[in-house]
């Protein structure tokens, strides 16, 4: 027996892997690697997205300012000399601009900073076009400032600001008709002398939008307020309607065609492209009902219709999670069906409902396409009034503001758009974190 085995070696053995097994094992490893790669690519895409947005956008939170003393000469700003705000308002921003330029020029001379290669016009161009307007507003608010010399902090032009942020370089300034290398050198000297500095930019959060020539002054104030108003409308409408609809469907609805129709409709609405809701808003709320364009109330209504399916699905899931024993106990003690639902089931389902609502609101906050159709893209500089009237005033919205800024020519707006995206994402992270905390703290397992 022993020599027979020695002469004819067995074809396969558990001790020696055959080629076939090797091939199968290799394909097993390959499959695993493919799976890991897929996950890796997904995570890498997420990381790249976040890095690209933050890398492009964090600079929007810093802004370059010029701080110099400015003499507010009375004969320029208040020719009649009686400090009457109405009369002074006749002096336009064009009256203020030379004042700033003059002050900057004399101050630089006093400080012995060479203005080599920079003409007075070019020096003026280093100040933001927004600065005279800001000065005019504060002078009209405090007429007694006229005639005094005040320490003023004014915005630097967007290109100068870009130089300190690395967006504009000496090489790119050679090619750019809006800025010269000499201006940048002067800006560097001013920064060394402490006249020009880059610091945190609250105005980005609080200011309204600004026109295409003054990216340095553009802010998110109106957009944040508009988004907030819309969320108020969505919360006020979608939560009660969604909860009411879910209670009916989950607790009361009989099994019939009508109920079926509602259920099919809800699952379909959840999959309808968002832009279709924009068309609905335009056709019904604006063209038919005559509501104003760009108004938060219209945006809120459209987003409510979009959010309803999300809220209804979440609410129904959490109503279903409440065990029947609760209902039976309430009914057994003599409560009516309605009482058992409203007194016992609904409170127990509340954490789940709120979590679903917050997630729905977060979705609504990031939605852009339907808002474009109802006129939210308009350029709005005025803050809306307080609700309820403010709900009918034109505003912008955070995601639409991002879109709006991507459509402007000045590259500084790319930085603004990314900055606005960071703000939007922060809001979303905050809302989702709240939903997670709510779920962790109050969710009950039966």
């Amino acid at each position, binding site marked *: 027996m022993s020599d027979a085995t020695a002469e004819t070696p067995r074809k396969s053995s558990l001790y020696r892997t055959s080629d076939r097994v090797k091939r*199968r094992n290799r*394909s*097993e490893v*390959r*499959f*695993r690697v493919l*799976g890991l790669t*897929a*996950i890796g690519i*997904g*995570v890498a*895409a997420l990381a790249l*997205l976040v890095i*690209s947005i933050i890398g492009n956008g964090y600079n929007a939170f810093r802004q370059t300012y010029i701080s110099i003393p400015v003499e507010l000469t009375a004969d320029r700003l208040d020719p009649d000399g009686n400090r009457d705000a109405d009369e002074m308002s006749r002096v336009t921003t064009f009256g203020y601009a030379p004042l700033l330029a003059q002050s900057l020029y004399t101050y630089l001379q006093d400080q012995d900073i060479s203005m080599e290669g920079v003409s007075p016009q070019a020096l003026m161009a280093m100040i933001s076009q927004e600065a005279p307007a800001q000065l005019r507003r504060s002078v009209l608010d405090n007429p007694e400032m006229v005639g005094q010399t005040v320490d003023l902090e004014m915005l630097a032009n967007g290109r100068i600001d870009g130089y300190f942020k690395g967006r504009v370089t000496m090489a790119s300034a050679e090619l750019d008709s809006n800025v010269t290398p000499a201006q940048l050198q002067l800006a560097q000297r001013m920064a060394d002398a402490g006249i020009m500095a880059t610091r945190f930019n609250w105005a980005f959060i609080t200011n309204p939008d600004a026109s295409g020539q003054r990216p340095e002054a553009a802010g998110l104030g109106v957009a944040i307020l508009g988004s907030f108003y819309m969320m108020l409308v969505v919360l006020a409408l979608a939560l009660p*309607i*969604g909860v*009411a*609809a879910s209670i*009916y*469907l989950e607790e*009361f*609805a009989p099994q019939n065609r009508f109920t079926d*129709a*509602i259920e099919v409709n*809800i*699952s*379909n*609405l959840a*999959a*309808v*492209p968002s*832009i*279709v809701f924009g*068309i*609905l808003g*335009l*056709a019904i709320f604006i063209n038919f*009902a*005559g509501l104003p364009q760009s108004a938060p109330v219209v945006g809120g209504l459209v987003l409510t*219709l979009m959010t*309803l*399916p999300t809220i*209804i699905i979440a609410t129904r899931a959490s109503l279903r999670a409440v065990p029947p024993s609760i209902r039976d106990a309430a009914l057994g003690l003599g409560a*009516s069906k*309605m009482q058992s639902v409203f007194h016992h089931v609904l409170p127990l389902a509340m954490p789940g409902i709120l979590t679903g609502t917050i997630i729905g609101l977060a979705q609504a*906050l*990031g939605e*852009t*396409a339907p808002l*474009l*159709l109802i006129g939210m893209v308009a350029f709005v500089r005025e803050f809306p009034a307080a609700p309820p*009237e403010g709900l009918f005033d034109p505003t912008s919205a955070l*995601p639409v503001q*991002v*879109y709006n800024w*991507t459509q402007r020519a000045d590259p500084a707006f*790319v930085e603004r758009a*990314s900055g606005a*995206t960071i703000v939007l994402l922060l809001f*979303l992270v905050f809302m989702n974190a709240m939903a997670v905390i709510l779920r962790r703290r109050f969710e009950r397992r039966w």
Partner: protein
Amino acid sequence: MPLLWIVIAVLVLGTIGYVLGRRRAMASAEGDARSLHSLPNYYGLNVLLFAVVPALLVLSVWLLVQPVVIQRQVVNMIPDTAAQSAGELSLVMSDVRRVADGLDRAVELGALSREDARTIRTEFTNVRDRLASIGVALGDEVSSDVLRAAQRYRVLKTTGTIAMDAVVLLLAAIGLGYAYARTHKELRARNVVERAVLSLLILASTIAILTTVGIVLSMIIETRDFFRLYPWQQFFFGTQWIPSFEGGSELGLIPLLWGTIYITFIALVVSVPLGLFSAVYLAEYASSRLRSVAKPMIEILAGIPTIVYGLFALITVGPMLRDYFAQPLGLGTSSASVATAGIVMGIMLIPFVSSLSDDIINAVPQSLRDGSYGLGATKSETVKQVILPAALPGIVGAVLLATSRGIGETMIVVLGAGAAARLSLNPFEAMTTVTVKIVGQLTGDTDFSSPEALVAFALGLTLFAITLGLNVLALFIVRKYREEYE
């Protein structure tokens, strides 16, 4: 805000009714709540509902109907010579409304007396200048017909509003009185209130149906108008998209549809393998620690707003593809391209494919896996030959849902794909989609009687039909071919 006041007045009446009803019920039971049919609060709520619900219902119906009725009345005053087509008529009517608003504002500011606003005539006064002086800008000189129509409009509106206020308040008072009179300890107040609450619940759940009806109706009506102005054969089969607001545009659907399909196809090429492989790995191989980190990370991708993906496409992916692929290969110089939009959309769709597939793979029973291992199959062989075939209908459903999501996606293509409608195979060229053109044709000042604006509704209807078809198909496949396990 007179509307707000009337609502508040009705609510105040309702609150008074609540207090009165509760008190009357308690009085009829001589202060002993045990002899009441229902809890005391239900008697109060009963009165409140009777006071508030009919009044508010009438109010909302009135608000919907009044503008239509007034419009009818005023339109008759405009001579046929001033407005031949429906489009001109709507322009004239918006003039009428603006003049009427201007007169309102003038009265409010004291620039005109009430009497003047009613009797002012273009023959004697330049209305446009008078209104301009108080900051109401009118485009054209106000014709006497428009002014008369505007005055008539104002009168009708004022009387209508007064009548509405009166009717609503009266109705609230009647309801209050009726319910109050009926309040007695034998009244089954709880049953009444619960029936009312139930009908409110039913009303809320019909909103979903109303929304769908609203979507379909609004688009069908406008699309019908569009096909009156523009032949449907040229819309569905035209291969040129050249809109021009001076008229003579070519509005063919084919190039837009091609762009949409091409971009969605690239998105699926990216997202289906990535999503499927990650779902399989997470469900079959990953340790629970990796799963607890990687799954939420991938699901974050689904929570990022599409405008953020659009920005990502615009500032990062587009330039990257152009600099490293398109220009070296000589395929194009545009950073907005089919590939840009497709890849970014693919990233967005990964979680749709992966989390749906993950659920479906997890639903395949363990016994199938064990049987396969018992026969000596490796893990990957089990996945490929047992699990995926068993999960196939669900996965196909997930892919169809992702397709429908991709076809309806707007912001990524608006920022990433460009606006040029062309039929081309080069993925590095800018193309455009149905959704981009809907946005393009409807943003800004649009004249809703021109085919160039109305085409957006036809595009919207097409989009709605396609996505609805895909969703229904997905649902059908999942339901029909789903394996039922014990």
